[in-house]
C-alpha cells in the first residue's frame, strides 16, 4: 500500500503530523514505519497534550525511590522494603468489550509492577458507569466486575479496595482504572533503561497474535456510532499465562541476568523496544521473523502493532541466554532472541532477511509532538442561597435513608464479593473500609491503599476538585492509621482539543499539584486518558488518585466500625455546613449548582497529623473520614459496620441541623474515644488547636437524635446494603 496523507489520517495522525514525519525522515515512510509513528505519536503513548502540564507535578520526596517515567513509581517503606505502584486506565476497551477490556486492564497494570521486580500484593480499582437507568449500564458493570475478578482472582492477588460511581456523563464512556501495589527489595529494582552494545534482546511470554492492533490509537480518539466495529482492537487476556510470566520473571530476576525489562503494553513491541532504546540512548535491531506468532503470515506491520497480552521484552547480559531460557521453558513460556542493542540510535527492523523499517529513535521519542493546547479557566460558581424553610418539610430519617441508598453511597459488597480479597493471607482490612490494608508479609508493617475521585466537585470547579481528591485520599489513609506516603494518578478527561476539557485538565492538575506539595504527598506514577467522549459528549473530569500509606505496626490499624457501648463519638474538624454540590442538595433538593466545599490545606495537614498522633498513642478505637453525605452518613456507616447505635447530642446554638448533618465540609473525621482516653485526647486536640464537636455516645441499636431521629440500625443497614444487589437482579 502506498503511504499517503489519507493513509496517515486513517492511522490517527493529523495532516501536520504526517508532513512533519516526512520532513524529519526526509522521505515518505513505508507502511510499517507509518504504523510505528502512529503508535508512538498518539496521545496515549506520547502524552502530547498533557506533558507540558504534567512536568509541573510534585514528584519528589524523602521516600521516593522512583518517580514518574518508569513502568511504575517506587517508594521506600524502610528495612530495604519498597512498594512499587501505579494506576492505569483501560476506559476505551472496557466500553467496547467490558470483560476483556477490564481484565486486560488489570493484567497490564500488574505487568507494569512486576516488570520492576516486585511481587504484586494488592489490586484496587476505580470504576465509573453511566446512569443506573441507562440501558447499557447494568451489562457494562457486570462485565467489568467479572473481568476484573476473572483476571485478578486467577493470578492470586487480592483486590483490597475500590470505588464505583454512577453518573450520566459516563453513559457513552465508562471508566475503568486499575491499580496494583507490589513489594520489592529496594536494592533489587529493575528498570527499562537498556545499556551496553550488542546485548541480546529477548522476547518472552505469550505468542503474538492479531488482537489489539491499533489499540493505543483507538484509546486516543473519541467514540461515534460505529464503536462496535472496534471490537477487534480490544486485547484478549489470559491470566494463567500472566501468572506463569510473573513467576518466571521473578525467578530470572533473582540473579543479575537482566539489564533492562519492559512489558509490552500499549503499542506492544513498538513502544517497548523504542522506550528501552531511547532511555539507554542506544539503537535496537529486531528480526521480526524470530517473533513467536500465534497466527500464520503475520506481517511486520501487524507484529509491531499487536497488543497481544502477557509479553515482555528483556535486554539480557550476554551469555545468559541459556540460563534464562531454562527458566521460561520450565514455565512453558515462549522465549526467543529477537534482536540486539546497537549504537545506531535507530530502530531497525528485519523481516525475511530484508530491512523493513529504519527510524531514528529520537524522532519517535523526544521529537514526538508536544502541544500547548489552548484552555479555558473555570470560574468558581457562586455559592447558593438555600431556602432553609424548604428543608422543614424534609424528615431527617427519610433524608438519611435516601442518601444511604444512593447509588454512589450504597454498599458495594455485590461487587467485591466477586473479587478474591483474601488470597496471599495478609489482607487485614477488606474492601468497604476507608482504605484496604495488607501486611508486608512476614513483618509488623502494613501498607494501606485507597482510590478516590470526585467528578462532581472537579466538574464544578476543577482547581478545588483537584485539591480535594488528594486530600480525600490523604484522609482515607489516615483513617486506617496509615501515614500517607505518595500517590499515583489516573487523569480521565474529555477531548483535549476542546478548550473547556483542556482547561479542566490543566486546573485539576494544578489542584493536585498544590495539595500534594503541601501535604508532602508526591505523585510517583500515573497515566492520562483523554478523548473520553462520545458524539461530542464528554465525561465529567475524573482524575483518580491512588494513595499509599504505611502502618509501621499493623496492630495499630484502625477500622470504622463502632466498637463499644458507652464510648464517646467526636467530630474532629470544623463543620460549616457546605451543602452546594452535596449529595443532600442533589438527592433531596434537586440542586446541582454551586461550588464544591473549600479545601483548606493547612487544616487538612494539621488535622491529619493530629489524628495520626491519636492513633499512634492508641487513644481512639475507630475512625472514619467525613466525605460524601456528611456527618450523619459517616456515622450511620460506622453504626452499620459495628452493629451499634448512637445517641447524638443536641446541636448547639443556631446550627441548622440539615447543614450540620449533611454538609460536605472537608478536613473532618469521626472518631470513637474510650472514656478513659478522653482527657488525653482533648489535650492533644487542644495542643494542635483543632476544632472538635462532642457528637454523642455509642448506645443501643438505633440512631437517636432528639425527637427527630429514632432509626433502628437494621433498617439503616437495609437501606444501605441492598441497592446494588437489587439493581443488578432487576
Amino acid at each position: 500500500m502506498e503511504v499517503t496523507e489519507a493513509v496517515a489520517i486513517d492511522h490517527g495522525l493529523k495532516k501536520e503530523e504526517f508532513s512533519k514525519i516526512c520532513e524529519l525522515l526526509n522521505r515518505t515512510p513505508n507502511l510499517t514505519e507509518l504504523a510505528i509513528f502512529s503508535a508512538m505519536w498518539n496521545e496515549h503513548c506520547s502524552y502530547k497534550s498533557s506533558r507540558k502540564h504534567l512536568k509541573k507535578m510534585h514528584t519528589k520526596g524523602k521516600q521516593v525511590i522512583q518517580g514518574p517515567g518508569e513502568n511504575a513509581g517506587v517508594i521506600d517503606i524502610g528495612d530495604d522494603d519498597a512498594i512499587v505502584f501505579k494506576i492505569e486506565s483501560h476506559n476505551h476497551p472496557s466500553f467496547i468489550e467490558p470483560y476483556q477490556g477490564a481484565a486486560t486492564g488489570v493484567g497490564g497494570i500488574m505487568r507494569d509492577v512486576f516488570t520492576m521486580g516486585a511481587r504484586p500484593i494488592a489490586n484496587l480499582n476505580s470504576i465509573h458507569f453511566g446512569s443506573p437507568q441507562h440501558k447499557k449500564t447494568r451489562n457494562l458493570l457486570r462485565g467489568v466486575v467479572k473481568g476484573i475478578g476473572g483476571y485478578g482472582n486467577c493470578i492470586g492477588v487480592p483486590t483490597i479496595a475500590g470505588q464505583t460511581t454512577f453518573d450520566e456523563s459516563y453513559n457513552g464512556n465508562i471508566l475503568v482504572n486499575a491499580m496494583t501495589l507490589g513489594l520489592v527489595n529496594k536494592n533489587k529494582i529493575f528498570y527499562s533503561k537498556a545499556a551496553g552494545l550488542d546485548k541480546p534482546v529477548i522476547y518472552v511470554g505469550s505468542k503474538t497474535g492479531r488482537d489489539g492492533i491499533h489499540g493505543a490509537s483507538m484509546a486516543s480518539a473519541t467514540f461515534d456510532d460505529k464503536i462496535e466495529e472496534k471490537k477487534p482492537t480490544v486485547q484478549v487476556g489470559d491470566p494463567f499465562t500472566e501468572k506463569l510470566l510473573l513467576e518466571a520473571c521473578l525467578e530470572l530476576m533473582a540473579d543479575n541476568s537482566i539489564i533492562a525489562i519492559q512489558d509490552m503494553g500499549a503499542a506492544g513491541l513498538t513502544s517497548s523496544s523504542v522506550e528501552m532504546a531511547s532511555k539507554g540512548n542506544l539503537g535496537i535491531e529486531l528480526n521480526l521473523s524470530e517473533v513467536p506468532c500465534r497466527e500464520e503470515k503475520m506481517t511486520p506491520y501487524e507484529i509491531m502493532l499487536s497488543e497481544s497480552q502477557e509479553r515482555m521484552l528483556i535486554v539480557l547480559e550476554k551469555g545468559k541466554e541459556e540460563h534464562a531460557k531454562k527458566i521460561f521453558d520450565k514455565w512453558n513460556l515462549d522465549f526467543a532472541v529477537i534482536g540486539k542493542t546497537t549504537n545506531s540510535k535507530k530502530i531497525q527492523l528485519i523481516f525475511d532477511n530484508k530491512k523493513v523499517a529504519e527510524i531514528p529513535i529520537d524522532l519517535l521519542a523526544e521529537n514526538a509532538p508536544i502541544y500547548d493546547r489552548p484552555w479555558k479557566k473555570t470560574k468558581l460558581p457562586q455559592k447558593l442561597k438555600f431556602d432553609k424553610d424548604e428543608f422543614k418539610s424534609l424528615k431527617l430519617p427519610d433524608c438519611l435513608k435516601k442518601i444511604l441508598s444512593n447509588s454512589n453511597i450504597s454498599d458495594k459488597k455485590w461487587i467485591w464479593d466477586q473479587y478474591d480479597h483474601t488470597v496471599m493471607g495478609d489482607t487485614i482490612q477488606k474492601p468497604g473500609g476507608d482504605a484496604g490494608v495488607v501486611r508486608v508479609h512476614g513483618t509488623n508493617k502494613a501498607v494501606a491503599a485507597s482510590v478516590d475521585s470526585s467528578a462532581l466537585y472537579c466538574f464544578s470547579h476543577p482547581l478545588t476538585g483537584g485539591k480535594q481528591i488528594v486530600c480525600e485520599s490523604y484522609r482515607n489513609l489516615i483513617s486506617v492509621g496509615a501515614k500517607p506516603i505518595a500517590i499515583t494518578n489516573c487523569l480521565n478527561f474529555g477531548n483535549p482539543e476542546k478548550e473547556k476539557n483542556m482547561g479542566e485538565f490543566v486546573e485539576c492538575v494544578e489542584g493536585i499539584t498544590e495539595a500534594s506539595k503541601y501535604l508532602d504527598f508526591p505523585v510517583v506514577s500515573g497515566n492520562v486518558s483523554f478523548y473520553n467522549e462520545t458524539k461530542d459528549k464528554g465525561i465529567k473530569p475524573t482524575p483518580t488518585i491512588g494513595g499509599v500509606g504505611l502502618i509501621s505496626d499493623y496492630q495499630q490499624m484502625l477500622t470504622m466500625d463502632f466498637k463499644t457501648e458507652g464510648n464517646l463519638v467526636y467530630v474532629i474538624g470544623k463543620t460549616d455546613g457546605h451543602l452546594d454540590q452535596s449529595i443532600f442538595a442533589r438527592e433531596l433538593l434537586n440542586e446541582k449548582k454551586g461550588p464544591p466545599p473549600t479545601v483548606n490545606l493547612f487544616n487538612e495537614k494539621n488535622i491529619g497529623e493530629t489524628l495520626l498522633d491519636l492513633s499512634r498513642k492508641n487513644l481512639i478505637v475507630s475512625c472514619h473520614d467525613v466525605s460524601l453525605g456528611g456527618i450523619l452518613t459517616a456515622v450511620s456507616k460506622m453504626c452499620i459496620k459495628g452493629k451499634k447505635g448512637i445517641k447524638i447530642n443536641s446541636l448547639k446554638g443556631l446550627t441548622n441541623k440539615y447543614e450540620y448533618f449533611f454538609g460536605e465540609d472537608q478536613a473532618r473525621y469521626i472518631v470513637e474515644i474510650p472514656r478513659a482516653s478522653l482527657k488525653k485526647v482533648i489535650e492533644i486536640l487542644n495542643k494542635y488547636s483543632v476544632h472538635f464537636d462532642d457528637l454523642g455516645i455509642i448506645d443501643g441499636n438505633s440512631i437517636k437524635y432528639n425527637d427527630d431521629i429514632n432509626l433502628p440500625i437494621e433498617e439503616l443497614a437495609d437501606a444501605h446494603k441492598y441497592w446494588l444487589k437489587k439493581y443488578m437482579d432487576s
Partner: protein
Amino acid sequence: MRSSVIIFPGSNCDRDMDVALRKFGFKNQMVWHNDKSIPKSDLIVLPGGFSYGDYLRCGSIASKSKIIKSVIDFANSGGLVLGICNGFQILTETGLLKGILQQNKFLNFICRNVFVKVKDKQNKYFKDLKKDLLELHIAHNEGNYFCSDDELKSLEDNNQIAVTYCGEDGTEDETTNPNGAIKNIAGIFNNNKNVLGMMPHPERMIDKYLSGEDGSLFFKNIIDNFK
C-alpha cells in the same frame, strides 16, 4: 508431621498453605508438578488456585499431571491427602473423590466468610475437634458440589460428608448455601476418610487480624491427631 504442598502451574494458594502448615508445626516442603516422586510425607496438600488456568474443566488437566500418580498411590496406601478449593476439584477429577464441582448457582465468583458444620469426627482431620461449627472462608467460582443420587446415598451411608455450609446457628438450608451445592456439601471424604476435599480455605483463617481464626483449629487438630 511432614507435609508436602504440590505446586501446579497456576496454583496461587501454595504459599498461603505453606505459611499455615509451618505456623502449626508441620515440616513442609513444596513439590513441583513435574517431579516424579514426592518426598516422604505424612500429609500431601493440593492447594487452591487455577491449575493450568482451569482450562478444559477446573482441575482436569492437573489430574493428568506427572506428579498425580504418586499422589494417588499415596492416597491408596492410606496417606492423608487434603485438597482445598482447586485441590478439591483436582481430587474429584482424579476419581479419588466422588462427584464434581460445577459453577456456582448464581454464576458469580464468591469471596466471603461462611460457616460450616463438621459432620463427621471419626477421621484423622476432625477427631476430637472442640467445635462443631467453624467459620471459614470461601473464594471460588466453581464450588457447587454435585453427584448422582447413588453416590450421594453412599456418601451419606458411609459418613463421607465432611463439612456442610450452614448459618451461624447451624441452619442448613438454601439461605445458608452460598453456591448451590447439593445438600449444602462443602467438603467430602473418600471411603477410608484419609482423603479430604473441601472448598473453604482454612489457611486464610489463621490469625485474628485475618478473616478469623477457626482455620487454626483445623490445622492444630490434624497435628494433634497425628501425635
